[in-house]
């Protein structure tokens, strides 16, 4: 019985670590939605691009990780800007569902382009981090680092939005889209900036994921849906809701996976999500 409990505790703590990572992933998506009112269905595919960037810079071109990772963050931030300028901007005035679908087209495109460019095989960064043992429990160092970086990313964004002039402008425009141009804020510039910021968060996410998982073109599908559901359950655009939902979801996945198989953990999490939608249709925190 004692052994059982310690493994359960390990699952709970692993869930906590996973929650940090999911919170970071959902944060970028929530930021974009809150400010631009668009859901980037292809968000997870941007993360995949970042993972490939780290992989190629590090393995192919022998960049050290401390150079490859910031480079990847910059690359994904630029992809975010490109996505906004080329794809989102022309449909900003169209029906909301068209905006959802157009980024779905980008999802297809990025996935296929990655297959075309990099092949379908799984690519491993080849960095093995030791496991950290605490008593009877062991945690992968990659997960601990990811959790720490995710917490720093969340705090960094929070400070940026609260303390800087640009952050204030971003928050203002998410509260009232119509009035801000009258106050001398250019929405176009704020949208571009927000896209870059959302992209940078995706880039940070990709650096943390590439330490733990192999890269392949379909990897976006394995954590993309869960990221959307976290955002929806938290209330699209609500960052606090997204953070809470991320930790709840991670516990379902980790503890559910501990008692049953991994897929059942996801099934329980998704079923819980559907149930929650009926209790609070607009998410935990209505924006």
């Amino acid at each position, binding site marked *: 019985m004692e052994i059982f409990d310690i493994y359960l505790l390990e699952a709970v703590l692993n869930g906590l670590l996973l929650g940090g990572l999911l919170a970071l992933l959902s944060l970028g998506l929530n930021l974009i939605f809150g400010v631009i009112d668009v859901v980037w269905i292809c968000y997870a595919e941007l993360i995949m691009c970042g993972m490939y960037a780290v992989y190629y810079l590090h393995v192919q071109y022998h960049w050290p990780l401390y150079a490859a990772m910031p480079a990847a963050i910059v690359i994904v931030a630029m992809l975010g800007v490109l996505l906004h300028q080329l794809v989102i901007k022309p449909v900003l005035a*169209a029906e*909301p569902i068209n905006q959802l679908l157009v980024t779905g*087209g980008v999802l297809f*495109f990025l996935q296929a382009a990655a297959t075309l460019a990099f092949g379908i095989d799984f690519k491993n960064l080849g960095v093995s981090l030791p496991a950290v043992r605490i008593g009877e429990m062991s945690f992968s160092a990659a997960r601990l680092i990811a959790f720490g970086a995710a917490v720093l990313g969340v705090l960094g964004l929070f400070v940026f939005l609260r303390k800087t002039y640009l952050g204030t402008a971003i928050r203002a425009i998410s509260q009232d889209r119509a009035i801000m141009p009258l106050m001398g804020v250019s929405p176009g510039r704020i949208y571009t900036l927000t896209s870059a910021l959302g992209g940078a968060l995706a880039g940070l996410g990709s650096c943390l994921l590439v330490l733990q998982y192999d890269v392949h073109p379909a990897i976006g599908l394995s954590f*993309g849906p869960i990221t959307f559901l976290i955002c*929806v359950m938290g209330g699209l655009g609500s960052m606090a809701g997204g953070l809470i939902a991320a930790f709840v979801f991670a516990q379902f996945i980790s503890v559910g996976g501990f008692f049953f198989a991994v897929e059942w953990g996801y099934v329980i999490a*998704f079923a819980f999500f559907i149930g929650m939608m009926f209790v609070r249709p607009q998410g935990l925190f209505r924006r």
Partner: protein
Amino acid sequence: MIGNYPLHLMILVLLWGYIYTGWSLMGRLGMVSFGHGAFMGIGAYTVVMLWNHFGLSPWLGAPAALALTAAVALVIAYPCFRFKIVGHYFALVTLALSEVTRLVITAMRDVTGGSLGATPNGALTEGRSVAIGALQFSDKWVWLAIIFAFWLLGLWVWRLVDRGMGRLALQAISEDEEAAASIGIHVTRAKLQVTLVSALMTCTGGILYAQYQLYVNPDTVSGIAISLQMVFGVIAGGMFVMLGPTVGAAFTLLLAEGLRLAFGNKYPALDTTIYGAMLVLFIIFMPKGILGALLDLVRRPRRAS
């Protein structure tokens, strides 16, 4: 005499055309569902599993699959409509449904074979090309006839919905739910009816797909990928005209096959890369789809004269 390969393509175009038509019943009225992969998966897997594990003929398995689909559709759709989950939220809730289905099929790997997929037990012994009880036919012409019949049925249903009073009600709902309710439209019931029809069509599509291909796989009959495929097939063709979904099915399939023939297997994902880029362009510049845009082109000069 038509060879087997063009016949196979025709069957697939009509089959997907039928499924896409079912999807567009909802899509055109503002209910963009990412959950139809669930209905297709339930159809395909229920029938194949009942046949493989209990020897139950697909003729009996199909009603079971349809009943299960109807139950799932109602359980998800009723609260959605009741609590006014629309737009983004509806799309993402239904997306969760299609992922749940895929994951359940994968997780029940002792029964379903997991992500390796499953093959219905063969009923076609040597010299037999038709096994009516098992719904297995080796002759592609038989399949063409069956699926053509279903495709016509799908168009008929489309027309029925299009001509019926229900459509006007639903169109009113998709534009303004509150206003529609205020003039006495039973919003939830109207939406549920069309959802049920759409889900059951997709379910039969899944059954036919499984019986024709004689192979099912959770990733090719359920999940987010197949749901998105349906959505985008319809958008490419045009969701507001009757033949639009079929045109979308033909376009996407012929594009994939054409590029595959042109470039061989040298560039494995070239077709989907081009397809993805075209989808983005379609949604930006041609939101009515290929057929919708063509019809506009044809109609415009007539109006001018």
